[in-house]
Structure formats: C-alpha cells, structure tokens
C-alpha cells in the first residue's frame, strides 16, 4: 500500500481522507486532544510525532482523518496511532492501537470506523494477524466502539497494584 496516497470515502458524510500525520497537523491534534481530555499536552504530541511518524514507518502508523471539502475542508476530524510490537509479554508480533479519537462534533458518522479499518488494513498488510488495544473498563463509549468492530477480550489480563508509600 502506498502510504501517502489518500483514500477517499464515498459512503457516509462528511467526506474525509485518511493519511499519515504531518508536522503541520500537530497543533490541530494538540487542540483536538485538549478539547477531548481537557488537558493540552504539546510536548507529549511532539514526542508521539517524532516516534511514530518519522521512524520505522513500515510498522508505525500515525494516521489522521481530514475533512475533504465544504466550509470545514482541511479540518482534522480524528486520529489513530498504532504499531506492530513483537515479543512483549511473551506475545507473537501483533498490532497495537494505543491512541484513538474522533472530534466530538463529528462523531457517529462513521469516521471512527474508517480510521479503524484503515489502520487495521495497514497492519494486516505487514503480515500481522492480530490487533490489540487496552480500554478503561469504565469507558463504555470506546468499549462499545471496539466491540462493534468485532474486538473481544483477549488472552491476556492486565494486572496492577498500588505501591505502598
């Protein structure tokens, strides 16, 4: 797959293209994340960009959905970030999705699904058969989304404990 050739949606509105993130997108991503989480984190996004959009691109995918035309053309409608990781936790190589959001004003129009299908397609094209993610179990919205895409509980269980002070 040619990474930089945008793919156009013909299905649901608004029309979007999904492409790799560029440095120019960063301020929009910081803004979008800030609006969703209430905490703008420019340093974090710079670092994400350096790590996932400039190196080892054959197994790292930092994708954005951009609105295509109309008065909102060129707006960053959402993003998804993932990579192929091997041998962590004794696991065979598998794809991880670890950053994912759609602009609250543009949700429920299929953009999340397009981003998801795009990144899973790219990961599949590297020869990987499994994708994973981790979701807070209180985050019913994101859980419902991944479930509707066919994801289910995997063979690993996340464990943790509070460390005494």
């Amino acid at each position: 797959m040619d990474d930089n050739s945008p793919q156009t949606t013909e299905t649901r509105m608004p029309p979007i293209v999904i492409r790799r993130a560029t440095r120019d997108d960063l301020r929009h991503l910081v803004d979008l994340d800030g609006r969703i989480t209430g905490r703008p984190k420019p340093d974090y996004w710079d670092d994400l960009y350096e790590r996932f959009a400039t190196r080892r691109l054959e197994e790292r995918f930092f994708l954005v959905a951009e609105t295509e035309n109309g008065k909102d053309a060129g707006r960053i409608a959402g993003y998804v970030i993932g990579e192929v990781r091997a041998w962590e936790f004794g696991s065979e190589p598998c794809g991880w999705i670890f950053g994912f959001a759609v602009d609250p004003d543009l949700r429920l129009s299929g953009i999340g699904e397009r981003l998801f299908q795009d990144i899973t397609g790219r990961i599949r094209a590297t020869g990987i058969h499994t994708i994973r993610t981790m979701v807070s179990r209180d985050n019913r919205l994101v859980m419902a989304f991944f479930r509707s895409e066919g994801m289910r509980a995997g063979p690993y269980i996340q464990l943790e404990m509070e460390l005494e002070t």
Partner: protein
Amino acid sequence: MQQSTRIAILALIELASDPERQVSVSDIGQKFRVSSHHLAKVMNTLGRAGLVKSTRGVGGGYSFSGSPRRITLLDVIELFEDTSASCKLGDPTEATAPEWALYDVNREIKEMANATYGSITLATMVKQMGKYRVVTAPQDAAGGDASHTESAPV
C-alpha cells in the same frame, strides 16, 4: 445468567435483527426451544421496559421497539437480575477477613462481567451472528428430527 435473562436476550436479538417484523411468542419459543408460558412472561417484562411492542390479532405478535445500537446486554440483564457490583457481604460491620477477601475476588469478576455486558449492544450481537453458520439437517433424513439445527463458529 438466569434462564429468563437468556431467553430475553435471544428474543431481543431475534426481533432486533429485523425490527419491521412481527413475531409470535410461539414462533420465538419454538426457535429457541423454550416454553411459550415462560417466554410470555419474559416478553411482558420487555414490553413494560419499552424494548418490544405487541400487536394483537392475525399476524400480530411482538416487534422490536428500542434502539439496537444503544441497548446493551447489561440493560437487558438488569431487568431480570440484580447486577449490583456489591456481590454478597452481608453486614460489613460483621464481615470477617475471609469474607472480605472472597468478596474482593467476586467483585473483581463482577466488574469485568458488567463492563463486558455493558459494552455489547444488540446491534453488535446481530452483527456478530454473521460469524456463525447454521447447519440445518435435511428435511427428509430417515428417522431424523427435521427441526434439528446446529450452529458452529466458522
């Protein structure tokens, strides 16, 4: 999961897979091999919760009246069972250390179960059904039970 809950979910998936369709209690009962008597009570509860509506008369029956994309399995389960994550501890001021320890484990499992049921919508269940093929035995199989069906993951 209790039998009533199970029947309710199966009936809802059946109705939600084609919201336009009216299905009689006896047809649903036959499909899932449950008594019409038990099913009728379950459908009543679902009706009171606004998830199904009934039409009387010829060709009448139940049809789906909720939003399949918003109703989760947990919403249905809660109509029939107490899913509060508290499990059973009794009076906390009297509970012993072993009771607390067991309670913690049970609560952990319950929270996982609720998160799972709470994130799976009826629409997701309908979508997932596509993964299962249904093998129907030939009608004229000698001595065979013509209504016998078998499902298996593909």
